[in-house]
């Protein structure tokens, strides 16, 4: 290239500099795109793998769970709370003024059948498992669950009422297979 550019001619030097700038940018861009496409599979490999994603759904038989009782089942490695709510619990969940809720959702949107509350048992603050499933567990100020890690209180609809957690306990996707059994996932 040094041969083709006329030495001493301003135009020649200028042309050459432009061409070099362009080639430099082109090489840089090709390098950046190449690196990015090489890094992508590496990052992507850290996301859940196909077998993890394919983790089966869980079937739960509700028949043995009496009114007022609760059971914990495992779904995708996480606890899911299934609570057979008493009429009083249902009533207290329904009569709450939505304005009083940090994460406002009516109870009716969180259940398929009012007597069965099914929520993921993972505190939306930092992921502890709240207490309230066993007899004698503290259930917090609102009769639902109490997370001992940093003091979050959930109500009988699994909604956050007090404490650092920002959101209600999640409702997993589930369907009633029969009147007394559900499939989660």
């Amino acid at each position, binding site marked *: 290239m040094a041969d083709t550019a006329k030495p001493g001619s301003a135009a020649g030097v200028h042309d050459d500099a432009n061409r070099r700038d362009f080639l430099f940018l082109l090489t840089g861009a090709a390098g950046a795109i190449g690196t990015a496409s090489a890094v992508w599979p590496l990052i992507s490999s850290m996301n859940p793998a196909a077998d993890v994603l394919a983790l089966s759904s869980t079937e739960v038989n509700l028949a043995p769970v009496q009114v007022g009782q609760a059971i914990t089942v495992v779904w995708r*490695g*996480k606890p899911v709370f299934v609570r057979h709510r008493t009429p009083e619990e249902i009533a207290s969940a329904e009569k709450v003024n939505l304005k009083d809720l940090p994460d406002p959702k009516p109870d009716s949107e969180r259940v398929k059948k009012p007597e069965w509350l099914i929520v993921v048992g993972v505190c939306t603050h930092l992921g502890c*498992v709240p207490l309230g499933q066993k007899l004698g567990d503290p259930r917090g100020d609102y009769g639902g669950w109490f997370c001992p890690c940093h003091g979050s209180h959930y109500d009988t609809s699994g909604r956050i009422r007090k404490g*650092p957690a920002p959101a209600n306990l999640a409702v997993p996707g589930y369907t009633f297979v029969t009147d007394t059994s559900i499939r989660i996932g």
Partner: protein
Amino acid sequence: MSATPSLLDNKLVKWFDQRLPIVSTMHHAGMEYPTPKNLTYWWNFGSLAGFMLVVMMVTGIFLAMHYTPHVDYAFASVERIMRDVNYGWLIRYIHMNGGSMFFVVVYIHVFRGLYYGSYKSPREVLWWLGIVILLLMMATAFMGYVLPWGQMSFWGATVITNLFSAFPLVGNWIVTLLWGGFSVDNPTLNRFFSLHYLLPFVIAAVVFLHIWALHTTKSNNPLGIEANGPQDTIPFHPYYTVKDLYGIGVFLIFYSLFVFFAPNALGDAANYIPANPLQTPPHIVPEWYFLPYYAILRSIPNKLLGVLAMFGSILILFLLPWLDTSRVRSARFRPIYKLVFWVFVICCVALTWAGGKPPEGLALWVARIGTIYYFLHFLVFMPLIGWFERPLALPKSISAPVLAGGKA
């Protein structure tokens, strides 16, 4: 110094050094390095930190020969190290307590820097590299603690990885990426082991840069004034090599007391219970060296703000060279800053205490007041004190006060 015989007089060494100047470079950095002659024992903690990094790497590599990173076998493989592997208990206890010792040493090293103004011009980059090392150490220690797969391993991992979900938009994406699944599980354990093995080597590389920066700007000293010339310095070897070695000896006694007589004093008994993803222990606490940050996190009843304050409490150290407006480095000559420094130390101790207690009653209030004070110290006191404080007169040189004392 040319009078003392050196390795470089050897013809063979010279031949090699002309082709790869590693011997002369090491000689330059590790022996000739002109060091202020007034360094106190507070200057031992840098070399102690380097020593601890080597101890952790060596013991870690041997642990890794026996450890199995799988949720079904990890806990049992650590118990096997403790019971069946020859000296496995020793290697593990050195590594386990070594984590704590490493932080003891590094925290003292950092507070030394805060007291003597070692972060000020021209040592800002040196200071930044130190903070980067601190952050990498925290990541390494956190992931190491997950490896034995006990209850605290599991729930500590759950709580800390969930911190990232506080960030809007990208939060949940980051958490899934950390987990490789829907909760802390086998993929998480595998990647934590991989990274726990990797990061100490990254730390070693940053330590190299840290020392490079040190040798460019030269060591600070208790007077906080620059050396005026050769009369103010002594060669690193033998004066400081021997002093550092002596320090390592004393430190090893302290370290051994834990390893041999109280190996589990700094740990949590719950980590000897295998991880159970369905049951959170009643009281989750991180290792002691994370307690102040945990106290800050829990003192704020809002998830995102708590997380930001926690990360901010360390990131704020990056700005220190500009938050401190005083032209005088050493607290020796800063009567007001000296006082405020010690109140700050008490604040950090109080936060450590509060972080280990359930967040209620007195502990919660100590955490809240401590958190406010922590940020006030950096954001308000440091800039203001530098502005209105009248520092004492600085000595003319490092030698001056000593020579004057000799005459008197």
